[in-house]
């Protein structure tokens, strides 16, 4: 009996994991396995395997200029997104954390874009960006095709995405700022630190875990952005906003090449894994 009890003790922890494992297997591992399998196949328009083609799909996407371009566009978009939404979110959080009148009003206003769905925001901005009727061109006195000119389209979509993303950054940073011990500011003030010195030497080190968390979340969000591209540009004009997620959608559901789309998904997955691993490594080094 005692022997049996020992055996049970060793397997007991795993039993508790069974329910979660079943769910993961069903909704994560199984679809993942299927994606991996399809990435080595040519598919019928119905998404069934027509025949296995080995690594042809991978060779095809890596020799396809459009796919490499869409990777590049995704990185460009992610870089702009991360920098602008974190910097603006940080500045707003600092400003509204000062002792000013109507603090709670500012907080509500700054966090508000978070409550708006990407689709709704896109529709509103499509009116704003319209080249003949939009308020933006009317105000600036220009005739720029914000969404129809390949030079401007990615910037325009980025502006909307940053605007939508500021709310989340703002909330996390405001919460983090309130966790910074007041004594540190007091002693910094006693040592004669000015506004910028105070934030550079006290605030940023104290909230660095939040900053790193936001960095990871922002990069992943940006690389997975889809709704605003679907709504505003459909990857165009001239593929100038064809980010990788939209490219995958287009290959799978419009062009019915599920094999190629699955290969692209796997590439995106690998990229995200590498980025996340890198960031965790960095975080351990930099955090106080």
């Amino acid at each position, binding site marked *: 009996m005692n022997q*049996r009890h020992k055996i*049970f003790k060793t397997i007991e922890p795993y*039993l508790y994991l*069974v*329910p979660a494992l*079943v*769910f993961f297997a*069903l909704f994560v591992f199984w679809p993942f396995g299927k994606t991996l399998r399809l990435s080595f196949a*040519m*598919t*019928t*328009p*119905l*998404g*069934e395997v*027509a025949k296995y083609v080995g690594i042809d799909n991978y060779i095809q996407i890596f020799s396809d200029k459009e796919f490499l371009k869409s990777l590049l566009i995704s990185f460009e978009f992610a870089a702009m997104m991360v920098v602008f939404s974190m910097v603006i979110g940080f500045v707003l959080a600092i400003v509204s954390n000062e002792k000013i009148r109507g603090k709670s009003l500012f907080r509500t206003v700054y966090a508000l874009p978070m409550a708006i769905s990407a689709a709704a925001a896109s529709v509103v901005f*499509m009116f704003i960006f*319209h*080249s*003949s*009727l939009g308020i933006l061109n009317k105000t600036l006195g220009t005739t720029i*095709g914000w*969404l*129809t*000119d*390949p030079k401007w389209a990615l910037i325009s979509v980025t502006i909307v995405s940053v605007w939508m993303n500021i709310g989340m950054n703002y909330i996390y940073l405001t919460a983090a700022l309130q966790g910074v011990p007041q004594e540190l500011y007091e002693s910094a003030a006693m040592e004669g630190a000015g506004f910028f010195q105070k934030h550079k030497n006290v605030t940023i080190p104290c909230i660095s875990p939040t900053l790193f968390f936001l960095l990871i979340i922002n990069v992943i969000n940006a690389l997975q952005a889809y709704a605003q591209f679907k709504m505003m540009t*459909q*990857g*165009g*004009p*001239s*593929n100038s906003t064809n980010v990788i997620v939209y490219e995958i959608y*287009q290959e799978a*559901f*419009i*062009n*019915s*090449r599920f094999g190629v789309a699955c290969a692209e998904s796997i590439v995106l997955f690998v990229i995200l894994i590498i980025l996340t691993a890198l960031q965790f490594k960095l975080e351990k080094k930099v955090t106080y």
Partner: protein
Amino acid sequence: MKKYKKILAVLLGSAMAVSMAACGGSGGSSDSSSDDSSSGDKVSITFWHAMGGVNGEATQKLVDDFNASQDEIEVHAEYQGTYDDTITKLKAAMQSGNMPDVCQMYDVGTKFMVDSGYIVPVEDMFETTGYDKSTVMDVITSYYSVEGKQYSMPFNVSTPMLYYNKDVFEKAGLDPDTPPTTYEEVMEYSKQIVESGAAPVGYSQAIYGWFFEQQLAGLGAYYGNNENGRAGDVTAVEFDQNGAGLKVFQLWKDLMDSGYCENYGTTTADTQTAFFSGQVGMIIESTAILKNAIDSSSFEVGTGYLPKLEENPDGGVIIGGASLWMMDTQDDVKKDAAWKFIEYTTTPEAQAAWSMETGYFAINPAAYETEDMKAYIEENPNFTTAIDQLQESPVNNYTAGVLSGVQTESRLIFNEIIPELYDGNITPEEGVASLADQVNKAIENYNASVGK
């Protein structure tokens, strides 16, 4: 030990039950609808469609009218989102065996449906039911026919035409009752509109591959080989060989370079809005937006035939829109019911009501003989433009349009090339070559994947 086994069993059991419940979610709704059929002795069938907004209400009304007109069949209409959403959902439904009995499918999905093997050609029902094939205009049925056999029943049918702003025409000193008929005239009129200050932009056409196909048909030229895929499967495009593609690309470039036209991108609604707000004198658009155009504009809307590039006796317009497909559900009772519903949609009364509520054509010419329709057209003369244009179009494989499994993709490729052309990054020759090359690759891939 027994106790632990029990715990394990409970754990596993509960996990399985939960996951099974999750999987059963989608199946639940179809179970309940089949319950309805057994209780009321009625045959219950499902009908998937992609009509939202005003057109969705008209579709629901059509279904309600059918259900009220007899007591053997109950049709359940289910809105599935856009055409693209519908085809995606139908693909999934084909694999899981949960297909609707009748499905609306857009024109470019025709080849996919034919190749899918999950459909019953409507022509199979004609003989047994004594249906008269000539009920529907043959210029319309020709789009949905492959090698002479009609596969689906046209439902909502539209063609492109010219919309113009009569107030702007008057201000510019143009005759508001004579729209341009050629692109040469479009260019002249645009110049006059802009230079007289009547509107900031003379003419605009959305970047939309459908217009390219229409302009090719207007030239009496094939898009794809094997007579647009009507005499055999398309294996390559032909517009790069017959010179028509270049003519059309040159036209797009010339219009844009004239300085009297404006590009509002690939979202057709953006071009429409610019026109509705009086910024643009003329646009080409589908006849399906006619009712919307009249309701949304503060000026008097005029309509004309799609302008021509060249005079050609074989040239005409291709019909667009969608048709109703009978799915092969392996259930003869349901198939009969599905056919009865489809047949009902082609009756003059049903078509007249549908056309008046939406702006789509009535596919049955007899609909135009009904009193309601006559009175309606009297009040809205713009509705006759579309009808006349279609009736004057010759019935041949040019105007039947290309039958290709990759046409959705081809249109998207077109959308990506035109902005490059506008920007001057490529010449019209390069544009045509690039389009042909990419579409040919897609065709090759499609044919390989369906085993042809």
